[in-house]
């Protein structure tokens, strides 16, 4: 084996180890914490391990010491909110993104910028004001209100990514469809939409994860009646590291599943002819 090749191989291995340490390392500590019954200094590993906290989190056992929080309802609440948010956001983002990409709309760039606004300023003052408005509308403390807030925050990814996707589809592909007899609507559903599918999926992933993770808006608008998973994580983590770790891991699951699914579809779509 030539010397140069050995150097390259060594560098690759070192890089791989570093990547694992940086990405997987902190996650490992999460996993260890979630099964640690007792873990005090100076021990490197927990003195006592078990699934007590997992059982409590999943509602299989209640214990007064922790406060008998079951995270199952919170998990399903978060999941359903995220799904509804993705659906509504995409229903807005697909037509909006298409229009912004394909037509010369007055103040187009300004409209694009408007979608960024909720994320361009410190969120607390925005949501405090929103709480005031939502209270008058009777939306504060309701799931409806929380869904609206998540849409507000997530729409920037929805609209920006979809409009970039539509812009990347050359108009001659649509014109070719028109020239063989397809109307505007037929062309959109048979040519534009299938070609945009990978980008639309990517944008819905962003919206989904944004909703699942959303904290500040939910904190002001939702609490104390709407307890999403991040809210539960926040209220318990102050007291109990193990419980927080369990919630954090559970919070990761839908994201990982969604990402895996999307990656599958994306790859199939590209193999299908995007190349």
């Amino acid at each position, binding site marked *: 084996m030539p010397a140069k090749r050995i150097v390259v191989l060594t560098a690759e291995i070192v890089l791989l180890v570093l990547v694992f340490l940086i990405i997987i390392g902190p996650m490992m500590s999460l996993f260890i914490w979630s099964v640690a019954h007792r873990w005090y200094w100076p021990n490197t590993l927990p003195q006592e391990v078990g699934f007590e906290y997992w059982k409590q989190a999943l509602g299989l056992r209640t214990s007064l010491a922790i406060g008998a929080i079951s995270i199952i309802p919170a998990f399903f609440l978060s999941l359903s909110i995220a799904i509804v948010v993705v659906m509504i956001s995409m229903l807005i983002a697909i037509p909006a993104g298409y229009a912004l990409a394909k037509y010369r709309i007055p103040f187009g760039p300004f409209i694009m910028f408007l979608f960024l606004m909720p994320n361009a300023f410190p969120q607390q003052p925005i949501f405090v004001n929103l709480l005031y408005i939502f209270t008058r509308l009777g939306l504060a403390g309701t799931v409806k209100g929380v869904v609206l807030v998540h849409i507000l925050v997530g729409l920037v990814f929805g609209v920006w990514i979809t409009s970039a996707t539509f812009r990347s589809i050359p108009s001659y592909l649509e014109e070719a469809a028109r020239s063989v007899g397809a109307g505007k609507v037929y062309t959109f559903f048979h*040519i534009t939409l299938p070609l945009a599918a990978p980008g639309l999926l990517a944008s819905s992933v962003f919206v989904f994860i944004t909703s699942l993770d959303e904290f500040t808006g939910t904190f002001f608008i939702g609490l104390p009646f709407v307890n999403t998973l991040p809210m539960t994580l926040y209220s318990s983590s102050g007291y109990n590291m193990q419980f927080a770790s369990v919630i954090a891991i559970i919070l990761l699951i839908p994201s990982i599943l969604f990402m895996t699914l999307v990656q599958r579809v994306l790859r199939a779509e590209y193999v299908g002819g995007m190349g």
Partner: protein
Amino acid sequence: MPALRLERIVKRYGKVKAVDDLSLEVLEGELLTLLGPSGCGKTTVLRCVSGFVRPDSGEIYLEDRKVTEIPPEKRGIGLVFQNYALWPHMTVFQNLAFGLEIKKLSKSLIREKVNRALALVQLEGFEDRFPRQLSGGQQQRVALSRALVLEPNVLLLDEPLSNLDALLREQMRFEIAQIHKQSGITTIYVTHDQTEAMVISDRIAVLDKGRIMQLGTPLEIYSKPANKFVAGFMGTTNFLHGRVAKIDKEYAVVTTEDGLTITGRGHDIEKGAEVDVAIRPESIKFLSPAEAMDYAREPNVFEVEVARASYVGELIDYQLRIKSHLIRAKGEARIARGVGIRILIKLDADQLAVLCR
């Protein structure tokens, strides 16, 4: 009745007139080429015909049907794009079947028509390939057959060969001409390549600044250019500026400022008019020493000095000095004429066009 008629089409983009009061009749079954440099308006004309651009004024007729206001999908016009515009998420079969499915034809009829269209472009057996699995030439043929499978009234081809390499381009020229002959579809072909236009066209319309400069058969356009622009665009041309001294039937005798007297063909020219004489390299004949003795006193024979000579394969590309002018000429490669040599040339008066300024 013409298959397609454009009546006084005007299209402005801002202050620029992309198409300037253009009228044109395309005859049933002919292949007409819109030829011109980029920005001459040829693509805008094509987009007006296909329906993606609405002219500011003027009317478009398909046979006797006025289609100016009709959307592209209802015009029944086939379109082939410069970059093929095949749908990447569909197989070759699906690409071809797309338009037929909209027409709600039966599955078996669609299959039959697709097979026939693919056979026409010699792509049988490629039905299940995706566009990216095909070469550029094959993609172009699929694009052509996608337009032909619908049996359009008129076929529009927008610089269909410009993305192919030189060798394939030459081959595809003949193939398109062949397919046009077989299908007999009225075709408008847009290109900026004059050789391409010469090879495939029944008629050529030379465009500049949104106007038709000349409309005619390839031979007419090449041998009797209507003006300096057309003469210059149809290939390397030398222009000598002068004034008409005498008119003799269809010939005009022109004298230049430095005292050359040249005879060429010209029509609608008056004595005393300022003109350009267009001299193509191939209309310049080098005289051998023997010939020189006989011809020396004849009109259109000039003594020149070789200013530059470069080999381009089968020919030598010369720059010749006549008095204050430099002109390009082509000579056989086997007879080398070195720089600085003085020789006689003869210009064929029938091949020289005298053009009004």
